[in-house]
């Protein structure tokens, strides 16, 4: 009985130590585990100007402009506090639209415009049929993408 | 025919939806079939050995009689 008790204690203490160590490591690496920065992070934190980085935010309604060459687009990203103009040349994912959350990868230019070479669409955790989404929008109870 | 074509097209995403289901089917069927075949092979091997050995050496009954 005591040997079982001892093995149980060893396993529990081991798991506790392991969990604590993992939590400390994850906390220490927090900034590196972040997949993208927000426009506010870009504006307030020291961001390396010459390194590729990712910015995530919502495409501002009405900000999307296609340039004359047909493949370059310009739009404004917002995290509802700060905005960041983005230029991107390439194919946009199917989910890309105004009011949609996206993640852009590229470099921050000296003029404050973010030059993206890759744009990924982010979607939210809401799943519903189109009719339900329309009905919610009409009745003003919409809480999904583009509601804010 | 048109309805079938439309169904298979999956709104233009058929090339992503169907492979996803195909992969799941192949992997799950694969592990099920492999597990059943191993079970049957071992069951036959145990039966053959038990028949060859004197009965008194058998302990605890058959290990698998299902």
């Amino acid at each position, binding site marked *: 009985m005591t040997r079982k008790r001892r093995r149980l204690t060893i396993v529990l203490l081991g798991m506790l130590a392991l969990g604590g160590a993992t939590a400390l490591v994850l906390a220490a690496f927090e900034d590196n585990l*972040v997949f993208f920065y927000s426009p506010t992070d870009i504006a307030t934190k020291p961001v390396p100007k010459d390194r590729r980085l990712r910015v995530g935010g919502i495409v501002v309604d009405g900000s999307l402009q296609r340039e004359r060459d047909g493949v370059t687009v310009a739009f404004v990203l917002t995290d509802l506090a700060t905005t960041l103009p983005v230029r991107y040349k390439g194919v946009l994912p199917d989910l890309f639209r105004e009011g949609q959350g996206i993640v852009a990868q590229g470099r921050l230019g000296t003029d404050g415009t973010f030059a993206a070479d890759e744009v990924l669409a982010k*979607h939210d*955790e809401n799943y*519903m049929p*189109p009719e339900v989404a329309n009905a919610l929008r009409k009745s003003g109870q919409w809480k999904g993408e583009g509601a804010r | 025919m048109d309805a079938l074509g439309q169904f298979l097209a999956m709104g233009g995403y058929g090339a992503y939806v169907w*492979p996803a289901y195909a992969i799941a089917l192949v992997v799950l069927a694969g*592990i099920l079939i492999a597990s059943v075949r191993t079970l049957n092979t071992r069951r036959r091997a145990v039966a053959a*050995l*038990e028949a060859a050995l004197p009965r008194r050496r058998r302990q605890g009954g058959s*290990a698998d009689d299902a």
Partner: protein
Amino acid sequence: MLHRFANPARFLRIAAVVQPWCAAICALALAAGLYVAFFASPPDYQQGETVRIMYVHVPAAWMALFAYAAIALAAAVGLIWRHPLAFVAAGAAAPIGAAFTAICLATGSLWGKPMWGTWWVWDARLTSVLVLLFLYLGLIALRHAFDDSDRGERAAAVLALVGAVNLPIIKFSVDWWNTLHQPASVVKIGGPTIHPAMLTPLLLMAAGFMLFFVVVLLIRIRSELLARRLRALRLAQAHAAEPAAATRGPVLG
């Protein structure tokens, strides 16, 4: 000696009764789930028809986590209480969990390409699930890395417990860090944010996957017990094949 056989024998009797029922309900749940997934559920307002990938992707992800949690629990029971079936069950579950993890990653990739615009990104959620796949492969490899199968099992059990810290990381990665992967939709505070018409096929497929796991697990446990019996029988045969007089002489004389 006797108690080591008592539990597996009782287990086999129970398994023989439970398994056909599980298999039948599993087939029913998968058939109903597939029907609803393809014919009786709507496309998503944002993702259109690709939402149907969710009905394999999410249940596979749940089972990948569940199987690992079950293995870690069995490993703890085996290490602490030395239950004779614990390591057998843990070893039998590892390949099934690996299969579910592989399905989760492959279907997620096929879903990510059209919706996000990429097959793969190194965000916290995707990376931690890839680590889970490597943990499964490590468990399978470690078990067979020792000549002494007892030591292999014990080493795999320790790895299973160590790797268990990855489970909360996977679950909460989408809440703790900015990820491309969206937060949880079903298991979350405040209830699911998924329409009932889409929740139904999801839960049916999840039930089917869970029962599939149970059925294959039972098959693999029975198979492993047979492999052990086979080893014991071969040993007995080897003894019997030795000069009979040497062992039987004193008994008869």
